[in-house]
């Protein structure tokens, strides 16, 4: 049955890209969620939208940018947005969550204006907003694999610092961990993760893949390591299940992946309740 799917190059691309995204989204998400920064993913995904819009505009207006995927511009905007969030959090030390709506609305506002200038309200834009498997070209796939690899490697090497900073920032500082530097690297990793994931799940849905598998894993794990791995396993299930279902039923892929994540979360909550009742 799956043979049919693999006959299409775009489906193979989408599956590979999906598997990469299914690892890095929850891997980054675990640290965001335990630091109570889940909404950061939303803020950065919306600023990515203005980057995409700028990319579309540039490719229409200038010859220099023709043929270059707007994804790169999305990535640049997302990283700049991430750095701005850090600055805003410093400016509003006692209202740190304020940085999120500020960046989020700026992203949407700027995005919509740029798209309207580019006269870009079309199918192409929709594929960025909601994700589209058909849209993952060869070049996109390589970018996703390359950036995904960098993100994963960074998490591998900074795992203990990220863990300590998430648990207790003051203690981490006293024990000699370079808080500022690690936080900066982390926020850039979040930005890169969002920018490369939007091809698969879309700007509006990427935060779901970052937070929902972690939310489910938190319900059933005792340790941080368990939370980390269970989140990844759940996200991979959601991506694979979502892509396959979307292919055969001709549904929107991003939405189907997100619904799968929601389904897994509800299932975990339900099973946990039954097990607890038995005890």
């Amino acid at each position, binding site marked *: 049955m799956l043979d049919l799917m693999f006959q299409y190059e775009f489906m193979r691309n989408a599956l590979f890209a999906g598997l990469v995204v299914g690892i890095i989204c929850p891997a980054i998400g675990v640290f965001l969620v*335990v630091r*109570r920064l889940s909404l950061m993913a939303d803020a950065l995904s919306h600023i990515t939208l203005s980057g995409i819009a700028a990319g579309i505009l540039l490719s229409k207006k200038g010859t220099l940018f023709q043929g270059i995927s707007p994804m790169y511009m999305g990535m640049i905007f997302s990283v700049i947005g991430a750095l701005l969030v850090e600055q805003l959090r410093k400016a509003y030390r006692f209202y740190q969550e304020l940085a999120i709506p500020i960046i989020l609305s700026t992203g949407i506002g700027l995005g919509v204006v740029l798209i309207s200038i580019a006269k870009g309200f079309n199918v192409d834009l929709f594929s960025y907003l909601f994700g589209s498997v058909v849209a993952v070209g060869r070049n996109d796939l390589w970018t996703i694999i390359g950036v995904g690899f960098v993100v994963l490697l960074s998490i591998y*090497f*900074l*795992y*203990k*610092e990220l*863990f*300590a900073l*998430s*648990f*207790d920032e*003051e*203690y*981490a*500082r*006293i*024990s*000699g*961990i*370079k808080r500022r530097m690690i936080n900066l690297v982390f926020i850039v990793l979040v930005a890169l993760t969002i920018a490369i994931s939007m091809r698969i799940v879309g700007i509006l849905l990427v935060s779901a893949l970052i937070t929902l598998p972690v939310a489910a894993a*938190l319900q059933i*794990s*005792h*340790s*941080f*390591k*368990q*939370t980390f791995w269970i989140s990844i396993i759940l996200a991979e299930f959601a991506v694979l299940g979502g892509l396959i279902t979307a292919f055969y039923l001709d549904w929107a892929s991003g939405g189907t992946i997100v619904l799968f994540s929601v389904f897994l979360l509800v299932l975990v909550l339900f099973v946990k309740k039954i097990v607890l009742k038995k005890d």
Partner: protein
Amino acid sequence: MKPIIECKNIHFHYNQNEVLKGVHFIVEKGDYVGLVGPNGSGKSTLLKIILGLMEPKQGEVKLFETPLGSFKEWHKIGYVSQKANSFNSGFPATVFEVVSMGLFGKLGLFKRLTREHRSIILEAIDQVGLSDLAERNIGKLSGGQQQRAFIARALVSSPELLILDEPTVGVDTESVDKFYQLLGKLHQEHNLTLLMVTHDIGMMTHHVNKVACLNKKIHFHGSPSDFEANQKAVLESAYGSNMNLVEHRH
């Protein structure tokens, strides 16, 4: 005796509000110091300055005879913060994972835990009597057990100095007794130098070998017996007439 912490003429103020006015304070090797003072006396600020989390407006701090600015050997210092507010109790981490954090600074960037580190972590957990709970979620432990896990985290890097900030707040009386026994054992058997900030004057004086009383500056620094002999005068000078102490609860 070798000085471990030296504070010379430390001044600090928040806006117009003077918190520390020329604090001179020395902790020597082998000391077990209880630092007391009323609310707002600058105890936490002094600790933060010693730990390099805040910069004094004036004065100098030395740790292990090295000026704070160039001090790098943070693994020589174990820190136990107030249990309350220090972490999110829904955090998914086991006792083992929490204690392992004590090694991260010493390990340095990009290095990962080896088997040898794991046995050092288990040893520290054993030292505080939590071996059976090593794989338990930290949020599911009692206040006293959590505090012992944090001591293990502070001990895992084999520090020479242990700094504790109101470690018994939110811990039940029975656990507080055990807690002091553990600190006493560490002080004697491992020759650990201890600096503990506390509200609990009565309990503390039975265990420490030096008492320091702070209110913007040091009002007393000496042995517990001297402190008890002059308690009324010292406390009146440090606390003023509005004395409101936490007394020994036995």
